[in-house]
């Protein structure tokens, strides 16, 4: 391909590319706003307390054991 044609192609790509990027992300703006309208805020009080304790393994017992041992060891080292 001669370079002039390549440049034309590249220019077109630049144009089309930026247009599509902007169109796409603008659509996403609207989608997000729509989303927030229907899904936003309402269930906050319900989820907030649920979250911190929801973890499948909040603090498993053996971790507590390990940490208690470690804390113990740490205290001993401090002396």
């Amino acid at each position: 391909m001669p370079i002039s044609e390549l440049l034309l192609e590249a220019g077109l790509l630049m144009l089309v590319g930026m247009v599509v990027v902007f169109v796409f992300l603008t659509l996403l703006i609207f989608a997000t706003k729509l989303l927030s309208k229907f899904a936003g805020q309402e269930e906050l009080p319900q989820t907030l307390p649920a979250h911190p304790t929801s973890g499948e393994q909040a603090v498993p017992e053996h971790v507590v054991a390990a940490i208690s041992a470690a804390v113990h060891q740490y205290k001993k080292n401090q002396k």
Partner: protein
Amino acid sequence: MEGLMTLWQSTALANFQSGQVIMMLVGGLLLFLAIKKGFEPLLLLPIGFGAILANIPLGGFTEEGGVLYYIYYIGIETGVFPLLIFMGVGAMTDFSALIANPKMLLLGAAAQFGIFATLFGAILLNLIPGFNFTLQDASAIAIIGGADGPTAIFLASKLAPELLGAIAVAAYSYMALVPIIQPPIMKALTTPEQRQIKMEQLRTVSQREKILFPLAVLFLTILFLPAATPLVGMFCLGNLMKECGVVDRLSKTAQNELINIVTIFLGLAVGSKLNAEDFLSVETLGILALGAVAFGVGTASGVIMAKIMGKFSSKPINPLLGAAGVSAVPMAARVVNKVGLEANPHNFLLMHAMGPNVAGVLGSAVAAGILLALVGG
């Protein structure tokens, strides 16, 4: 003493080619940058080490049967490794700031001009004798402006595998250089008053919004840009796993062990493409130059877009935020914060900059999809 002769013949000393020596020095330089300068060490250390291994005479790392050959063949040629990294990055990304202020997506869009301007620039370079970039090459190079490692590797592996090494190195190096590249551009394009603009506080975002957001992104990508779905899809999968709250053990593995394992392999495999034949050419210099242009143009167009938006917006918009649109998460957002603090020590922009910052990730994945669709065929 035939044995000693065989042994001598099997030493590197008797077989070194100058190109290999130079590539090893390049590998050493990458290690230096990674370890001593802290340039994206998670990637540049394995890349640099991989470059050294790949250039050992008689080492055979990149020939069939060599370990780097297998890793490249299985992980990069298939595209699996960059996609898994992207899934992990998705599982680490918090879209709250963007959902709270979705207009920031425009900044992520504007910064992608760095990509497309560089594409044009790469073709322009063909005017200089010695350069001979195809549209595929130019697209793969341009994606450096996306400031997103896995996206760059994924695209380069599809469009211009022989440039993969140089492109990945440039992408990660410039990402590490963001704190040096961006501030002068940001300051040149803004007045001290503009840099002091305070943003409104962001509202809190509900968990349901955070769960639906990646699905909305995926949905739009499916509709309009299926070529971007491998990247966007894996990213959204990771993000959904993180936000849905019911598969925490999968999300944590994706963010930690899995991404770490893949990162080691990905780095080595990228390093294995740093061979003298492909790398030691004037094209690599061109790629490095174009990469710098890409970051600069992306930063500038982000800032300019932010200024334009500020004019039409009812709420104040600090133009520095535009610079975060190039992605390079979370470095670019931190740079915005830092430059903002220089202008006004009480103005913390970090949270606001996270919006355009993650928008930039989406933007460059979209740009990659466009390039794949238009020049990938």
